[in-house]
């Protein structure tokens, strides 16, 4: 349907006004919200991801597309929730204790929201206790931790250990990222996955919640 392609294009080009308008029109015309998400919006974000990997898109394009996706999802989510549909996953995200850098964390949060995850953003300098409290209160299934500094990445390790000690490790998957972080480090501290950019983080999150 021609009009629905407009939603796909609006997300791909990051036009949140058109994305919102087209969504409103489609919903008013009685289009199934689930079909909008599955047939237009997620394929658009997948294409955004492909262009990012191909060096055609960079961070600004990722951000404006995620923002358009979010504008559209804000209209759709209440309808899906009313039908009993769950979000793609519930993620608790934060920059670890001692680290105040939030650009990378915000990018990942925006992309995860764009992919239909419910994101609980705890901000920066987040202690292990805060991560655990949020996990328990919000029934999250995924923890995403960020660190920019080599001096603060050790807080990821202490957070993983605290999650184990609190007895909730088996209920959640843990993913990490940030400039100094590597797959080797993720393996060493017992995280379930690592991603080196916000786009790949979405694929990783999907994989982890499906596992």
């Amino acid at each position, binding site marked *: 349907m021609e009009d629905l392609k407009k939603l796909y294009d609006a997300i791909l080009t990051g036009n949140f006004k058109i994305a919102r308008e087209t969504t409103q029109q489609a919903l008013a015309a009685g289009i199934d919200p689930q079909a909008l998400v599955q047939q237009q919006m997620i394929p658009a974000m997948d294409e955004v991801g492909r262009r990012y990997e191909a060096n055609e898109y960079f*961070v*600004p394009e990722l951000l404006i597309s995620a923002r358009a996706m979010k504008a559209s999802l804000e209209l759709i989510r209440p309808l899906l929730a009313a039908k009993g549909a769950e979000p793609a996953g519930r993620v608790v995200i934060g920059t670890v204790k001692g680290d*105040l850098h939030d*650009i990378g964390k915000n990018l990942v949060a925006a992309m995860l929201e764009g992919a239909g995850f419910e994101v609980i953003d705890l901000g920066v300098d987040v202690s292990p206790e805060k991560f655990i409290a949020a996990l328990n209160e919000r029934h999250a299934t995924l923890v995403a931790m960020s660190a920019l500094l080599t001096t603060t990445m*050790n807080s990821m390790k202490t957070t993983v250990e605290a999650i184990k000690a609190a007895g909730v490790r088996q209920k959640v998957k843990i993913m990490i990222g940030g400039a100094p972080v590597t797959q080797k480090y993720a393996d060493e501290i017992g995280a379930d996955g690592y991603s080196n950019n916000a786009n790949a983080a979405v694929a990783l999150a999907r994989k982890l919640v499906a596992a």
Partner: protein
Amino acid sequence: MTSVLAQLLGPGLVITDGAWGTQLQAQGLQPGECPDGWNLTHPDRVRQVAQSYVDAGSSVILTNTFRSNRITLAGHGLADRVEEINRAGVAISRSAAGARARVFASMGPTGKMLMMGEVTEEEVFAAFAEQAAALHAADALVLETMTDLEEARIAVRAAKTTGLPVIASMVFDSGKDKDRTMMGSTPEEVAGVLAEAGADVIGANCGLGMEDYIPVAQRLRAATSLPVWIKPNAGLPELVDGHIVYRTTSAEFARLAGGLKDAGVAFVGGCCGTSPAFVRALHAALLA
């Protein structure tokens, strides 16, 4: 060209300094502690780092003021200390440098994203203008480790209000060829926009090791008639037995730096993982 730069830039290249953060940690700075706050609480230890670079032969040393803009300091609860921290930073480096080295004051990014609406253009301009004014006793201002060309452009305009020479240096570590900034800008775009904003020197630092910065340096050199400033990392960090290690040795770093000299780079130094030993090695390799 401004007189400070003209005096420095003779036929050879100018050797700047190396990393400060790791050197301050060696002096006891704790993870998560604000290094810039040490200008007020541990000026003697900050001075030792500055002195170590002067003694190693740096002709230009920076200042411990990378985070000392109002927006970043607010995260450390130090927003009301902007002027003091910056003035102290210049005074500390100046006391170590004496007549042996020039003091270029460091200004890093705010850490907030303009396009996400986390800060406004006006707030960013005001924060950088305030910091630059507090650094006025330096010989020049270095806007370094910038990742967003728009923020860097605003920072250049703000820094220029002091009348000091301005070096504008960005991180190139993105894209499949590692030749873009985080926001996707090329060396050519960066050189064009920052020169138009009034920068006196265009540069690249952090993010990549020496080898990867040589092609970026060549492209900056070709894109502008302004002097070029390059400070690579000592390779990329690796974690070994819980400790962060940079694998590139000072000798290897200095040997590869010949490529920067051949590219016509004016200012050469090091970023993360480098030390006074790297400055001594650059001297031996490039100025001998």
